[in-house]
């Protein structure tokens, strides 16, 4: 437990520092920082209504964060989760039109279709890296733009429901295929799927042989080569699992929130997922609380806009600052705090050995 706290100390400090800096931005825009902090907290975790909103947004964040976290454990930096999410949502909406299933089997089939589409998309980035050595960070983001272009083309063209006039959408999912709320709340079952996916990823990485092998491939490629691990296959598997999670996020958003695939799906969950994964240090179990925290920030975002008249991009700024500070805080991880404290505040007496001055002195 102590080590978990130690691991979390720096990210928590960085997020607090980000909130302080964000207050500066709020003040710059002419609003009260204290009021902004209060609204952020109340809008995210203040009452049951806010909690429902927060948890609803946390569900896709957990899944898109896995799209970064799982490939990262195999040594890949994938940032194109948005593309997998969008195509997953599209595949879910399209499959709902052609699949013969109804009821819960139909819902499962729709989710599987979404996950498969996302898995294929991110596996493509992994395959390009294995096959040609193409940098997967760049290729996955380029693929995300390709996916969004394809999505818009199909939703506004071949797959469009002619009845959707102002906002091009696919045909809505049949009532029986949708993902409903957890008894007596607005929170849908997608949240449970997200938590289960994180737990499954953690179990796989920690206890299953292929998960362990994936971590070896990511952590020490040389060792993986020496013991003959099938690195190419494991990297593809990690990409497919991550992409599948993001695709599932798209399917859940379609089946539980939007009821059809349309432009509302392109909401930036894929990009926020990158941040969640980095703050969670690519650890699936840590993804759960971090996703809830950032789901909360997202939920409070529109409240900031309404109450204080701040631009809707305020949450993006908060996320950006938090991301930068989290990365910078890594530099402090191995600092010997006692030595630093002594160097700064303990005035060495005349008998003290002045070793802190450095050896060259």
């Amino acid at each position, binding site marked *: 437990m102590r080590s978990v706290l130690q691991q979390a100390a720096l990210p928590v400090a960085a997020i607090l520092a980000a909130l302080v800096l964000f207050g500066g*931005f709020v003040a710059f825009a002419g609003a009260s920082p204290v009021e902004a902090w209060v609204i952020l907290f109340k809008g995210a975790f203040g009452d049951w209504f806010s909690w429902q909103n927060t948890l609803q947004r946390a569900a896709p964040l957990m899944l898109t964060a896995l799209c970064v976290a799982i490939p990262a454990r195999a040594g890949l*930096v994938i*940032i194109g989760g948005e593309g997998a999410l969008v195509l997953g949502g599209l595949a879910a909406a399209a499959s709902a039109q052609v699949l013969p299933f109804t009821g819960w089997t139909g819902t499962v089939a729709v989710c599987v279709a979404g996950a498969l589409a996302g898995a294929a998309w991110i596996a493509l980035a992994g395959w*390009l890296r*294995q*096959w*040609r*050595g*193409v*940098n997967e*960070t*760049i*290729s996955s*983001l*380029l*693929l995300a*733009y*390709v996916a969004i*272009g*394809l999505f*818009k*083309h199909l939703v*506004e*063209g071949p797959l469009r429901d002619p009845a959707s006039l102002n906002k091009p959408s696919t045909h809505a999912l049949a009532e029986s295929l949708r993902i409903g709320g957890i008894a007596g709340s607005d929170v849908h079952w997608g949240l449970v799927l997200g938590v289960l996916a994180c737990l499954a990823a953690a179990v796989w990485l920690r206890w299953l042989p292929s998960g362990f092998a994936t971590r070896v491939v990511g952590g020490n490629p040389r060792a993986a080569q020496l013991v003959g691990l099938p690195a190419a296959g494991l990297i593809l598997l990690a990409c497919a699992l991550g992409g599948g999670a993001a695709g599932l996020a798209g399917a859940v958003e379609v089946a539980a929130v939007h009821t059809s695939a349309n432009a509302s799906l392109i909401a930036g969950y894929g*990009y926020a997922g*990158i*941040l969640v994964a*980095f703050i969670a240090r690519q650890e699936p179990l840590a993804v759960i609380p971090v996703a809830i925290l950032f789901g909360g920030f997202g939920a409070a975002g529109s409240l900031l806009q309404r109450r204080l008249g701040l*631009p*809707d*991009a*305020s949450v*993006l*700024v*908060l*996320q*950006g*600052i938090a*991301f*930068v500070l*989290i*990365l*910078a805080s*890594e*530099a402090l*991880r*191995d600092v010997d705090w006692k030595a630093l404290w002594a160097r700064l505040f303990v005035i060495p007496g005349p008998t003290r050995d002045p070793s802190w001055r450095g050896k060259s002195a």
Partner: protein
Amino acid sequence: MTADQLLALVAGILGGALRVGAPFLFVSLGECITEKAGRINLGLEGVLVLSAMCGFGGSYLTGSVWLGVLCAVLAGGALAALHGVLCSLPRVNDVATGIALMLLGTGLAFYLGKPLIQPQAPQLPPIELGNWSSSPAVKAALQINPLVPLGLLLAVALWWGFANTRAGLLVRMAGDSAQAARALGYSVPAIRIAATIAGGMVAGLGGACLTLFYPGSWNEGISSGQGLIAVALVIFARWSPLRCVGAALLFGGAGALGPALQAIGIGWGYHLFNIVPYVLTLLILVLSCKPGQLAAGAPGEFSAR
């Protein structure tokens, strides 16, 4: 398709190659400087968006388009400076930092640029190359961004400078062998920070092209990955400033395809034509990368792989 339409289409793609290619040119030159020093700055996507916003805001608030360009350059340099300093810290990875600055730059630009979506700012005066033609479509297509000649000069200057000047050799030494630079008593982090800032300022010119020439207004979809494409272009251009010019023109042409077709009345598959540059980038990456090794011409100290 009539002869007039064909001429307009060809002029549209050629003129568009220069017009749409300008941001690619500046960002890829900027990334070239950064990568020659041994750093990768994926955050140039964020730099492009932020400097586009600042350039537009500067032009709108001061009434002078050239002060707007200056604002864009300074904003680009400032965000890149953050990248340079962060990457110099121990255990901070430049790819991750680049992603963070991509998000931060975009967020800041959307946040601070919210009031700028409606107004019109003074625009860069075009250089007219189409006066020989009587066709208004051709004339309109061949209006050249005045920053483009500057970009071409800059490319030649960089190509010459990397080979012949003290600063150019220092940057390349920091990128190819940090140990050699250290042995001669130079501070590698200082060189890299300076190169990253210079790269950000050059990329800032690309941002100015977006909002002060073409498309010539500020909105939140203005860049959509163009900075990232330009970063990928540097791999294709094998870290040579001169080849960056060719690559930027090629991509400008690809990006101009959709608008040029639309201009002559072909509206089908608008979104599909818009993804051509991304697909082209992927194809070029596939063709120009070799599995398991750094591309020829890559700086030796590259931390990305």
